[in-house]
């Protein structure tokens, strides 16, 4: 073990450092405490903690000492590439005495843009259990000397003792972020619920305390408004529950062998009346030979109805809506295209996000409700993909790609 060869005094220093790191729940404070102590102990000018981005399989700099903000913000290193990338991939600590003459790594020297005043550096993996969660790097000894074996053991021990503290602080940060998102979501929902509620309350008040001297007063009209808003509340609560169940994996999809052409025709005939009232023409283009898929008829109907209703809502009088069905290799692609108001680029990313779609602060995407977040869940349960191509003023096109058969066998 590395600890055996370190003198008692140094061991105490390391354990104090670890104690400090474990005491901090704030990820930045936690890492800063580690880096500051490391710089004191090893006498270094540069130090950084890089963390693994699991999705992208990259390392990014979480905190650093002695590096400019530009480098901190923009450095991304693929696992396996560069010095830190090698350390993360191989799960091996690294002591380089002379970077200019190191056969494995000297080619990376020029990418370091003169940041090193010495050619010696240390890079050590941060591990929790068997998993590498990041890398700690130090370089530029103030004495301009190379790192000793003792420095190497010291940093290895520090990494060993603090990796869990970093991991805990990361989990804490993540939990805090989720709590914030939840709060935003709940407050957005409250606003959304409050609007119809106010209208209902106001309507009832107008009926109960019938105003005098008002020619325009029409009790039926007011009661109709109340009813409409009760329905709106009901729909909103229903989609909330639906979404929560889908996300929690509590809703099941009941896959049967369905004819997509028939499903789409049914959906189109369902909205035909609303379209005609707005003089919107509904067109279908089913240039497909074989339109059967394994899917949940009701759920896919729910998705298509949602897309068609959005298209109707955002397409002005006299516009067109086209529903297409085509083959895409082994998959089928459904698209709903409209000549409506389109969607701003900045909103496209937010459309399918339940945390954003309720945001009443942006009227352009208001009214989409939770529908698209639900669509996304349903399509992903079918192992499919849903996306949108749109420009403001140029209409929108919602596309769905569905695999024909999830069971691996294809039936005719």
């Amino acid at each position, binding site marked *: 073990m590395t600890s055996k060869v370190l003198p008692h005094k140094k061991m105490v220093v390391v354990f104090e450092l670890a104690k400090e790191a474990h005491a901090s729940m704030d990820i930045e404070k936690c890492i800063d405490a580690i880096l500051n102590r490391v710089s004191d102990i090893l006498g270094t000018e540069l130090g950084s903690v890089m963390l693994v981005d699991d999705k992208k399989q990259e390392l990014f700099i979480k905190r650093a000492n002695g590096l400019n903000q530009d480098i901190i913000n923009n450095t991304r290193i693929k696992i396996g590439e560069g010095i830190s990338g090698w350390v993360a991939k191989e799960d091996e600590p690294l002591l380089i005495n002379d970077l200019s003459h190191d056969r494995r790594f000297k080619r990376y020297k020029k990418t370091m843009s003169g940041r090193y005043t010495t050619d010696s550096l240390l890079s050590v993996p941060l591990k929790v259990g068997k998993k590498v969660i990041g890398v700690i790097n130090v370089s530029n000894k103030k004495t301009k000397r190379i790192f000793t074996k003792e420095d190497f053991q010291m940093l290895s021990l520090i990494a060993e003792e603090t990796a869990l503290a970093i991991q805990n602080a990361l989990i804490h940060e993540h939990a805090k972020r989720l709590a914030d998102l939840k709060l935003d979501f709940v407050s957005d929902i409250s*606003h959304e619920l409050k609007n119809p509620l106010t209208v209902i309350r106001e309507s009832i008040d*107008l009926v109960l305390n019938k105003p*005098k*001297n008002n020619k*325009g007063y029409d009790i039926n009209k007011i009661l109709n*408004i109340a009813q409409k808003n009760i329905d709106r509340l009901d729909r909103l609560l229903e989609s909330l529950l639906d979404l929560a169940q889908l996300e929690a994996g509590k809703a099941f999809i009941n896959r049967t062998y369905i004819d997509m052409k028939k499903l789409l025709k049914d959906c189109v005939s369902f909205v035909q009346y609303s379209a005609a009232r707005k003089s919107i023409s509904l067109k279908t283009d089913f240039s497909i030979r074989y339109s059967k898929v394994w899917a949940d008829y009701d759920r896919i109907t729910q998705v298509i109805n949602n897309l068609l209703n959005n298209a109707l809502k955002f397409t002005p009088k006299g516009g067109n809506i086209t529903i297409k069905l085509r083959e895409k290799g082994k998959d089928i692609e459904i698209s709903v295209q409209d000549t409506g108001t389109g969607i701003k680029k900045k909103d496209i990313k937010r459309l399918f996000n339940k945390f954003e779609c309720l945001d009443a602060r942006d009227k352009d995407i208001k009214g989409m409700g939770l529908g698209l977040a639900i669509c996304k869940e349903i399509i992903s349960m079918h192992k499919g993909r849903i996306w949108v191509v749109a420009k403001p003023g140029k209409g929108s096109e919602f596309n769905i790609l569905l695999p024909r058969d999830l069971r691996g066998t294809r039936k005719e």
Partner: protein
Amino acid sequence: MDKLKVLVVDDEPDFVELIKCRLECNGYEVIVAFNGIDGLKKIKEEKPNAVLLDILMPGPDGIEVLQKIRKDNKDLPVFIVTAFSNQERFEQAKQYNVSGFIIKTSDLKQEVANITSAIRVSPMYKFINKKSTGQRDDV
């Protein structure tokens, strides 16, 4: 004295209908517009005595409409209507001399009462009143 004419500019038909009813109960004549462009047109054509202006509308929003109103008409009482209290928007609107704010989710009866008292103290109202009744501006 003629009824005071109020223009409501808001894209939510239910809210428009209810506030219209409330205002009419309070003796106002109400005209409505469902978007900013139509609202500006009606201000020119119908010359309302006060405007209730929704801050969040598709197309030109309340702030943009308010800026345009203030170009030709410094004193027209404008009340900003909003679905929730957003401090930033309030501050933005305040720069353009607004007479008050109406929160959609609060008690509209009370809000309309507030409008009435705000209109009464506005210079425009004094002017109209003086003209129509020939009295001094001691309202």
